[in-house]
């Protein structure tokens, strides 16, 4: 065995996978990346890493990365490789034609949480300043939009109240609808470290996840509720806190709107939320609800971490409000070791939320309807802006089906695979006159595209990411972009081709513009981040080096007080029936990342070659299913086929799968239901039936033809 080569150069950058935002040193040898080493000074990871960030970076040089821009007049035509200039000219002429023919609001744009802050900001600028409407959304819509809404309503800021290290001061850790050891592994390790030191763990999740029990880490209470019953369960926990007077009266009097607290007490204190009533309905022992409530209220430091198991429901925003209410009532905000913290799925979901990629708010969550805010953007951008909210991503798709939306610019996002009710999404995309896809790969959505802009991976560009703990870290270019342009440059050139003159000499100038226009980012700059390593917003005159813990003195609401929302439980219309007697819920696995665009192109497929359906042995026996059998899963919206794994991680009546592989088509099943406030899709609850089949009728072939999404050698056997 020879000695390994010694890397010649190393560049400090930020992982592009989950929302933990680990710092890495990308080491190169002979101009190629040969190793990613976790950065010891990374404030989120302190030298630790997980398999994805540490090892699964090879996708950046996958053979099927697109290297040349392409256009075609119709999706039935083959792609035609063209120059960048020709691609920009064609896309711009189509968008202008559509707007002339169908009106200013007939086109829209979507960005992604895999984009840098600078790219996200530019794409919304493209929509608002160049297209002249507010049809701009980003994929946080389909994961954490309820977080922004629900937390803003109660505690004033739709972001994590803490930094990750804060958990080392926690005595009680409540994890709701999240599985950090798989989904946010580096944070999961920190959490387990704290549990080993003696903190108590409460997990609310339909599935007995890896977080519930692992070596030297076991949940004190696991509420294995039926999918879709979060609000009832959390209201019942609140009921116990109210009836047993476990709330922190002094905190509420000093820091909250007391009248609203009284209204809330009346609602959750009602008999219908007693654990003895709610327990049987949600499928857990009433005593466990009481135990969870008492543990959380007692603290002394109790903290909440939650994930998409809270948000991706028709009552997603209400669920988030429940968490805000609980933390306020028990005084678990405003210091270290407490708080309410969303675990964000993608590297830059928080940035996507902060930087105005929403149809109703500019960067910093300020409404487009607000004249003063709008004028500040008009002054900077030199154009007049639409004062009315635009369409959200699901509404854009509805509008495309209805024929009122004709053009879309989709950056780093794959709605055809990741959005719910897949058949409806495909119908929408097929209906567009011009779909511009800007991505690394010809993804599922690109099958319906007319223009393809080959993007740059996070190893090939400069910018910043904002992690789940509000931490803004630098993304630094390690190698040259494969197709020649960094993503932010592509969007700028598209703006130019549309006739909007703007130029930046480097990505840092975009961050400077963000800082000028966004209060929480006022003090941010590449120079500051280079000096400090990373900076948590708000970063401004009062906090020139950023802010670790929010809400220490006041809540960012007009009167400075936290408030309580009335969180009545409204059952989802998605219910089991004789025809669809099981509830399907979804989650992730450690080695794969979301729809797998990156991780499926790495050796990580060794661990997870396919998505499987977890079925409780009782349900399996009723259906004659054995471990390893193929099954057809049918919902009201579609069907797909998966291999079955018998597992007692799920209770009878519940089935579970991951959604990492395109051919699994989990979203062929999911419904068109969505959160009442934000339209975040209800991915987590779908009524299904599962039937044994002899062999799969290759589900992959059922979704569009002609384009291979994976290089042959990586196609799972």
């Amino acid at each position, binding site marked *: *065995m020879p000695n390994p080569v010694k890397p010649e150069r190393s560049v400090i950058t930020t992982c592009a996978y989950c929302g933990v935002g680990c710092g890495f040193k990308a080491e190169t040898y002979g101009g190629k990346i040969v190793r990613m080493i976790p950065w010891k000074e990374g404030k989120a990871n302190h030298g630790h*890493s997980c398999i994805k960030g540490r090892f699964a970076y090879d996708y950046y040089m996958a053979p099927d990365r697109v290297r040349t821009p392409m256009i075609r007049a119709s999706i039935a035509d083959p792609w035609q490789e063209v120059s960048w200039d020709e691609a920009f000219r064609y896309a711009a002429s189509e968008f202008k034609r559509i707007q002339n023919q169908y009106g200013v609001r007939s086109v829209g744009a979507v960005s992604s949480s895999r984009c840098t802050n600078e790219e996200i900001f530019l794409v919304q600028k493209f929509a608002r300043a160049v297209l002249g409407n507010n049809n701009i959304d980003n994929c946080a819509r389909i994961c954490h939009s309820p977080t922004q809404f629900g937390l803003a309503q109660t505690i004033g800021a739709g972001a994590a109240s803490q930094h990750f290290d804060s958990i080392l001061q926690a005595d009680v850790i409540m994890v709701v609808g999240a599985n950090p050891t798989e989904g946010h592994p580096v944070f999961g390790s920190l959490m387990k470290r704290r549990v080993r030191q003696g903190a108590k763990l409460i997990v609310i999740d339909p599935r007995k996840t890896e977080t519930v029990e692992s070596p030297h880490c076991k949940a004190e209470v696991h509420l294995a509720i039926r999918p879709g019953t979060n609000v009832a369960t959390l209201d019942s926990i609140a009921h116990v806190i109210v009836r047993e007077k476990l709330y922190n009266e002094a905190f509420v009097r000093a820091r909250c709107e007391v009248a609203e607290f009284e209204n809330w007490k009346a609602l959750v204190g009602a008999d219908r939320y007693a654990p003895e009533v709610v327990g049987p309905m949600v499928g857990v022992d009433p005593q466990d609800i009481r135990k969870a409530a008492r543990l959380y209220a007692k603290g002394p430091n109790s903290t909440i971490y939650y994930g998409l198991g809270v948000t991706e429901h028709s009552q997603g925003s209400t669920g988030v409000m429940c968490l805000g209410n609980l933390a306020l009532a028990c005084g678990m905000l405003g210091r270290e070791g407490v708080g309410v913290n969303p675990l964000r799925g993608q590297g830059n979901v928080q940035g996507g939320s902060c930087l105005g990629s929403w149809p109703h708010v500019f960067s910093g969550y300020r409404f487009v309807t607000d004249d003063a805010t709008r004028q500040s953007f008009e002054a900077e951008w030199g154009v007049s802006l639409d004062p009315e909210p635009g369409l959200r991503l699901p509404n854009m798709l509805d509008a495309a089906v209805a024929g009122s939306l004709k053009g879309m610019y989709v950056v780093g996002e794959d709605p055809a695979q990741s959005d719910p009710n897949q058949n409806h999404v495909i119908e929408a995309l097929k209906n567009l006159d011009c779909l511009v896809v800007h991505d690394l790969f010809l993804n599922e959505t690109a099958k319906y595209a007319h223009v393809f802009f080959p993007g740059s991976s996070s190893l090939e560009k400069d910018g910043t990411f904002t992690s789940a703990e509000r931490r803004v870290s630098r993304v630094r270019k390690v190698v040259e972009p494969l197709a020649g342009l960094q993503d932010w440059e592509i969007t700028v050139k598209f703006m130019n081709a549309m006739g909007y003159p703007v130029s930046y000499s480097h990505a840092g100038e975009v961050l400077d513009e963000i800082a000028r226009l966004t209060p929480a980012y006022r003090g941010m700059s590449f120079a500051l981040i280079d000096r400090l390593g990373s900076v948590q917003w708000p970063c401004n005159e009062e906090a020139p080096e950023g802010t670790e813990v929010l809400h220490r003195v006041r809540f960012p609401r007009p009167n400075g007080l936290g408030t309580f929302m009335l969180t009545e439980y409204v059952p989802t219309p998605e219910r089991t029936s004789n025809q669809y007697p099981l509830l399907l819920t979804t989650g992730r696995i450690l080695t794969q990342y979301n729809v797998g665009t990156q991780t499926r192109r790495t050796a990580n497929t060794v661990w997870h070659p396919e998505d499987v359906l977890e079925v409780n042995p009782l349900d399996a026996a009723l259906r004659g299913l054995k471990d390893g059998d193929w099954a057809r899963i049918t919902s009201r919206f579609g069907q797909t086929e998966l291999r079955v794994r018998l597992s007692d991680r799920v209770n009878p009546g519940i089935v579970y799968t991951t959604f990492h592989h395109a051919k699994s088509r989990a979203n062929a099943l999911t419904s068109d239901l969505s959160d009442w406030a934000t339209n975040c899709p209800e991915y987590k609850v779908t009524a299904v039936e599962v039937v044994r089949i002899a062999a799969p009728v290759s589900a992959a072939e059922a979704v569009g033809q002609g384009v291979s999404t994976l290089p042959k050698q990586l196609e799972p056997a």
Partner: protein
Amino acid sequence: MWSELRGLRDGVDLGTPPRDGVPVTLEIDGIAVTVPARSSVMLAATTVGQQIPKLCATDMLEPFGSCRVCLVEIEGHKGYPASCTTLVAEGMKVTTQSPTLKRLRQGVLELYLSDFPPEELEGGWSEFHQTMQAEGVSENRYGWGQNHFDAPVDDSNPYFLFDPAKCIVCSRCVRACAEIQGTFALTIAHRGFESKVAASQDQPFLESECVSCGACVMVCPSHALVEKSLFEGGYYAKPSKT
């Protein structure tokens, strides 16, 4: 607060985790140094640039005291305590370099060397190689006796391999898996000369509970655990464990 995590510095290995505590002043080779209470003598020495050689200690892991390379002399203390497991005390006087210490350390390092593949000394750049170089140890007086040179490489994991021939059984990997990652997949199986790093029930890494976080590879001082991507044109493996 949280100095164990936040006090870590890129490119610097303090040897043992940084601590929070009241300031304690001591002397290292005549140089006064003030560090937080509960810090190790090793950390205090590193702080003032008096690097003490070490193999099993690293600042991301709790000290373990197994390699016996980091020995020092402390005024008023008997013997040669390991600087990684000895905590600082007010007024302590520490000597990190002396002819006796040099001789003791060389003796230990030569023992390590006697079971390290000789053809892999040249061109190596691991901490183990650097330590040997810094301490001027290039051959050993014990000769090449019984050894682990032919132990099969475990290359089951797609991303890293484990070459037991290069393993010095310092337990850094075992401790990283427990302390940092919290998976507890690794252990030292057997005793004495038979001691070896084992994943789960002595299974190939890929089949074990290992979650491939890379923490063990990060802390391995001898490139026994090493990224496959660092081998240009691939690595050649001895018959692998099946």
